């Protein structure tokens, strides 16, 4: 991180300086990431347009959260609030939570049931598909006022998003030309998504929310980085929940390089291989309550950890019997919200639910593993914000974006892959610069 961006002249504009570096990427490959990418306001706005409101899918909920006709929930994509509803016909619809009249955020409730959507300000009323059904005083009062005769309610519905449910996990995108989820993810990543969302009805066990003072991309990088897991997370390592050499597979979507899965099987108890370079490994630690780490097999394979990143903002994890989604919501370049949805299946036994609740102690705002990440990402934010002309180095496992297929976890390949795709999305029109 000690190299500075070249301070070349920025075209006809002002000269670059340490705090206002030229906004370029130093190399053709993504083995270098300039830190202005995490701090620059214009770059952030471009991200909202091109990444969050562009042809990418976002997880907006589970069908089990809105099981009946008229049920709705509020959700978020980027900085925009959306309403996820089940229509009277039982279909799913995702609508921008902003009135077509004057932009008011219509829905202020997290969950609910309704027959129609009415804006509280002037009572414009929409059906659950977002069609404008009526406006008060359309013809005025006693022949005075009202809308012009040619005012067409059909032209003033709520903005609708494209929706796809993958076995009950609801995704939405602002771009109606976005490819279907299977094509979007690629077969390998789709397979792992549907390993968890396998057709069994889900049941939400609860949510957790955190604000973290760092750029949103740092979170996706963190999950794409198995290097840190074996070093930072002493708890995982010391209690044998994860080792860098454990048997596993990595699956990278070939089209984008930006969706990844790591799926692996816990090493046998007592095995200490792969711990040689871990300064923080503590073989003396013993748990009093082994329930925390006692996982029961529940899928056909023996995978104990599956962690998947779906571009741009979703993480799906199985950690033993704990199933969660982590959804990243950007709040400006310097901060993001992390929304955790913990779930199981509708037909889980009481014992299974209890195992999921116990193992949830590993993650979330107080998680034995996740606290480390929350803290370190805030240190990242603190280290990056005042140093936008510095450059991050990502050379572990090479310089290309392709991730290894042999399960090798000693690599930053998935992070480089993320940035290869990100650069294509962000700077496709103006070369490799804003």
């Amino acid at each position, binding site marked *: 991180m000690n190299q500075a961006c070249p301070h070349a002249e920025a075209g006809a504009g002002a000269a670059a300086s340490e705090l206002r570096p030229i906004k370029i990427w130093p190399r053709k490959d993504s083995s270098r990431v300039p830190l202005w990418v995490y701090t620059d306001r214009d770059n952030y706005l471009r991200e909202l347009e091109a990444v969050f409101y562009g042809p990418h899918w976002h997880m907006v909920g589970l069908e089990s959260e809105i099981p009946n006709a008229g049920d709705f929930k509020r959700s978020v994509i980027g900085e925009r609030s959306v309403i996820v509803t089940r229509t009277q016909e039982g279909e799913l619809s995702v609508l921008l939570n902003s009135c077509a009249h004057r932009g008011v955020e219509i829905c202020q409730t*997290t*969950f609910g049931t309704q027959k129609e959507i009415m804006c509280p300000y002037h009572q414009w009323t929409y059906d659950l598909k977002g069609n404008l059904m009526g406006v008060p005083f359309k013809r005025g009062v006693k022949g005075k006022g009202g809308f012009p005769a040619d005012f067409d309610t059909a032209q003033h519905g709520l903005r609708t998003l494209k929706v796809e449910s993958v076995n009950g996990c609801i995704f939405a995108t602002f771009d109606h030309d976005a490819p279907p989820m299977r094509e979007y993810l690629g077969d390998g990543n789709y397979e792992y998504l549907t390993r968890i969302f396998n057709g069994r009805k889900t049941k*939400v*066990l*609860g*949510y*957790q*929310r*955190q*604000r*973290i*003072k760092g750029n949103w991309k740092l979170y996706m990088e963190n999950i794409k980085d198995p290097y840190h897991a074996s070093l*930072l997370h*002493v*708890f995982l390592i*010391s209690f044998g929940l994860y080792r860098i050499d454990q048997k596993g597979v990595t699956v990278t979507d070939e089209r984008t390089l930006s969706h990844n899965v790591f799926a692996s099987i816990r090493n046998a108890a007592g095995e200490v291989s792969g711990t040689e370079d871990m300064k*923080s490994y*503590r073989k003396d*630690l013993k*748990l*009093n*309550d082994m*329930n*925390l780490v006692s996982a029961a097999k529940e899928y056909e394979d023996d995978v104990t950890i599956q962690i998947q990143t779906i571009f741009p903002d979703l993480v799906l994890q199985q950690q033993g019997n704990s199933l969660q989604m982590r959804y990243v919501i950007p709040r400006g370049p310097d901060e993001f*919200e992390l929304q955790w949805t*913990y779930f199981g299946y509708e037909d889980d036994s009481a014992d299974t639910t209890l195992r999921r*609740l*116990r193992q*949830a*102690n590993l993650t*979330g*705002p*107080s*998680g*034995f593993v*996740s*606290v*480390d990440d*929350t*803290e*370190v990402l*805030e*240190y990242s934010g603190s280290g990056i914000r005042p140093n936008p002309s510095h450059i991050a180095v990502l050379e572990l496992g090479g310089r290309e974006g392709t991730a290894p297929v042999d399960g090798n976890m000693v690599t930053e390949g998935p992070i480089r892959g993320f940035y290869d795709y990100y650069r294509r999305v962000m700077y496709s029109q103006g070369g490799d610069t804003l």
Partner: protein
Amino acid sequence: MNDPVMHARVADLYTRYSETLCDLKIADWPEYFTDICLYRVVSRPNHDRGQLIGPMFAENKGALKDRVVAIRETLVYSSRSLTHLVNGVRIVSSEESTLRTRSMLAVYQTLIDGTTQLQLVGRTFDAIDASGPELKFRERVVVFDTELLAGALVYPV
């Protein structure tokens, strides 16, 4: 519940519990609980929906000790100081040797280079075992309003 001695003992329990956490004597924290116990920290929205997921959940003193080991030995976090303000401790009911209580709680956190911030506010719904010489928590359920937490919640409340 009109026993003034018991009121004083309960008030003293909450004061000592808070002092222990304010003093960051985290190793002493599990000793406020019975061997088999319920400790749960859960957001108000989850709690109101009957959902049990929360930042912390333990079913016995051993699990509380495991959390102490994590906080002292394995977790990576910056140092901080905490002040717990407990208000309105009330004995709701008493049956045999179990007292049901509730209270209001505010926790302030101070990080290096940071001004003091309100970290968490909420209510507690506890069950206290009064059968032994010292009062102990058999259940402690902290229902917090601060669903959207600032960063990590490292220490118990």
